[in-house]
């Protein structure tokens, strides 16, 4: 009975988050939808006129679409990894961030693969991948891995939603939301009553899924790295790409999580739930990842530079001339600034940690760009062409519009989900309080005896 009252109180507390669409929210969503509409127009243009409207040409056949693909899937991978690990620890503070991390995981896994579809010249023949599959192609591996991972992430997110959906169903009289939404709560809660046996079973399943999700993410992201490293292309044909991509994915993912925490905390005024401690811990993970990622980046480029094979030298020459500032930003600023911020104690404030995260995320995107584009611009056989657009790649507005559409869609879906289920799991708060009460009681009992 006691928990029921508490549940009701919590539903009432979080109700405003689900109920009203403030003016600011409406403007925000309007902007996002506008960006998406522009992106849709760009997409129609690309489908009707062909890939000629992009900046991709015979040498750089993959542009920022594939970079966005790596980027989003990397974030998802990182989210899966972190939320999986969170489920193994009984830390009191994990509850406030776990749902945010899980939502990031699923949404980026949903958006990432759309970008790979944008790279495909004949979307009308997409089903050929299933009609005429060839298992030795790394693309087939990638499709299998990404689809499995997406399904697992969805399932995982849903599992973590169930207790809250049940609470929202039980206390829907306290919620001023449309009737259909209440019906959806009821339907999706699949009769969960939070009985001890149900709770235990759900916990078990969720824990199994969280370890599975970690493994799947590692597999999926390694396969993605292999798309590049299994080719003979100088700059790509590297043995460290799979672990390098995983570390890079974690780095950007932690960055995105920090930025999301910052925004959500501000927007929903969740200062009581998302506290400085969260930023500190996430900041430390960011620091560790920055060190690891910097180490991998250094090893990769250092061995290329030191052994100075002609083809590698050609690539490095391009990186240090045409892409000089991009290289400096991606691989120096993008790594060293977050490290510096985390090492200087005075700078370890919420704002500065978020700033470090922004730098890390931007730097990492640029790092992916430098892996994809300059490598394709320096193939074994030198590009000799009179058409400048065939020699160097520049993304067109179509590509940028669609890239921003991906980001906007991510934010829009996030907003919708945050309006559907509280971003802080109610069930988690209750479980934590129950655990604390139980510990107190048992302490008392041991004292008395």
């Amino acid at each position, binding site marked *: 009975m006691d928990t029921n009252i508490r549940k009701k109180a919590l539903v009432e507390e979080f109700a405003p988050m689900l109920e009203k669409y403030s003016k600011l929210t409406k403007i925000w969503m309007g902007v996002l939808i506008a960006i998406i509409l522009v992106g849709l127009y760009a997409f129609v243009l690309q489908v009707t006129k062909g890939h000629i409207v992009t900046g991709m040409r015979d040498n750089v056949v993959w542009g920022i679409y594939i970079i966005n693909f790596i980027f989003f899937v990397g974030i998802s991978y990182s989210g899966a990894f972190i939320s999986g690990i969170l489920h193994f620890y009984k830390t009191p503070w994990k509850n406030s961030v776990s749902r945010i991390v899980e939502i990031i995981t699923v949404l980026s896994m949903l958006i990432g693969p759309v970008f790979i579809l944008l790279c495909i010249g004949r979307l009308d023949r997409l089903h050929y991948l299933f009609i005429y599959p060839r298992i030795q192609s790394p*693309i087939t591996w990638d499709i299998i891995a990404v689809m499995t991972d997406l399904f697992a992430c969805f399932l995982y997110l849903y599992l973590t939603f169930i207790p809250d959906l049940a609470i929202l169903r039980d206390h829907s009289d306290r919620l001023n939301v449309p009737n259909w939404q209440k019906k959806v709560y009821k339907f999706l809660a699949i009769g969960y009553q939070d009985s001890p046996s149900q709770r235990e079973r759900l916990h078990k399943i969720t824990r199994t899924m969280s370890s599975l999700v970690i493994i799947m993410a590692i597999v999926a992201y390694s396969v993605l790295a292999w798309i590049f490293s299994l080719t003979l292309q100088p700059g790509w044909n590297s043995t460290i790409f799979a672990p390098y991509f995983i570390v890079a994915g974690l780095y950007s993912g932690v960055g995105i999580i920090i930025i999301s925490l910052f925004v959500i905390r501000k927007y929903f005024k969740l200062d009581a739930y998302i506290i400085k401690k969260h930023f500190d811990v996430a900041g430390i993970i960011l620091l560790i990842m920055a060190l690891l990622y910097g180490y991998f980046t250094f090893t990769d480029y250092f061995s290329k530079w030191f052994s100075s094979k002609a083809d590698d030298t050609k690539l490095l020459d391009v990186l240090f001339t045409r892409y000089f500032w991009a290289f400096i930003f991606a691989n120096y600023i993008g790594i060293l600034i977050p490290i510096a911020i985390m090492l200087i104690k005075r700078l370890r404030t919420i704002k500065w940690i978020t700033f470090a995260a922004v730098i890390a995320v931007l730097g990492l995107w640029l790092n992916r760009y430098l892996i994809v584009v300059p490598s394709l611009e320096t193939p074994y056989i030198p590009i000799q062409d009179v058409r400048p657009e065939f020699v160097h790649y520049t993304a067109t507005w179509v590509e940028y519009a669609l890239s921003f559409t991906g980001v906007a869609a991510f934010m829009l879906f996030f907003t919708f989900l945050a309006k559907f289920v509280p971003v802080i799991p109610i069930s988690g708060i209750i479980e934590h309080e129950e655990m604390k009460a139980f510990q107190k009681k048992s302490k008392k009992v041991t004292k008395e005896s």
Partner: protein
Amino acid sequence: MENTNNNNSRRKFLKLGLISGVSVAASATLASCSSDEKLESGEKMRLLTPDGKIVEVDAVHLNKYPEAIITPKESREGIPNKKFVMVIDLAKCSNARACVENCQKAHDLDPHQEFLKIQLIQNNENTEPYWFPKPCYHCDEPPCVTVCPTGATYKRDDSIVLIDNNRCIGCKFCVTSCPYSARQFNWGHKASFDRKDIPYSPETSVPGAEGTVIKCDFCPDLLRQGELPHCAKACPNGVIYFGDKNEDIVTNGVDTYQFSKLINDRGGYRHMESLGTKPNVYYLPPVEKEYPLERGFEDYPEGKERYKDVPIVNKLKDQGKI
């Protein structure tokens, strides 16, 4: 005068090529005989087979089969008992670009789309640059075929690597996996893609299709007729030899050589052997070049811009040679 001579002798050797291609014709004839009985013309032709036997074939059966269009499904089977190979004599190339143009015409390519690219290569600062025609190498270990997720590109028994543009989804993975940049992409639409009068065959690569990958196909449609590929036919200098490894014979239409002897005597090599792709295109090194490098710029004013990254180009410009 020299020209007519050349033409005459080429025609003769085309016939020779035809004869060397008789094993195709013969086996094809047998196949077609059983399905549709043709009236014999009574005109017998005596042909020399690769193993030195003289056979008599009725004239009707010659070249009949190759005129049939090879469907995408049929194109997955190679021409029986063949192993096609190309030898490019770098000493004779003057960047005349006849090969490129003839290929473009035959494959309905735009002026800058080249299945066969002529690169200007300088191996190191101490050696002279040279013209380097680069078709698809039709590798025996083709990375492009391995990575194709739908089997749109395939390796045939006759060593040819083809693309079926009805099957290609345009993922471009093959383009990135080819270390020789042999593959291109149809980025936009062209009116000629809609042509209905010529049925599509991977052996001719026409009509093209938007959003699919294209590349040099070794012209199997011509090979079936015992002719040389468009590039080899067009070359005024006889740079490109084409032939069959099984028969151990290559010809540029004028001279015919024993393939193994030619590459052994002349130091033939394959480009970037270390990659392990086992190309079927061999190069004869650019020794005792027949033409000065400047020749390549005479009828190709674009070359000054195209090859500007090769140091010699600026030097020649300064010297006023181009």
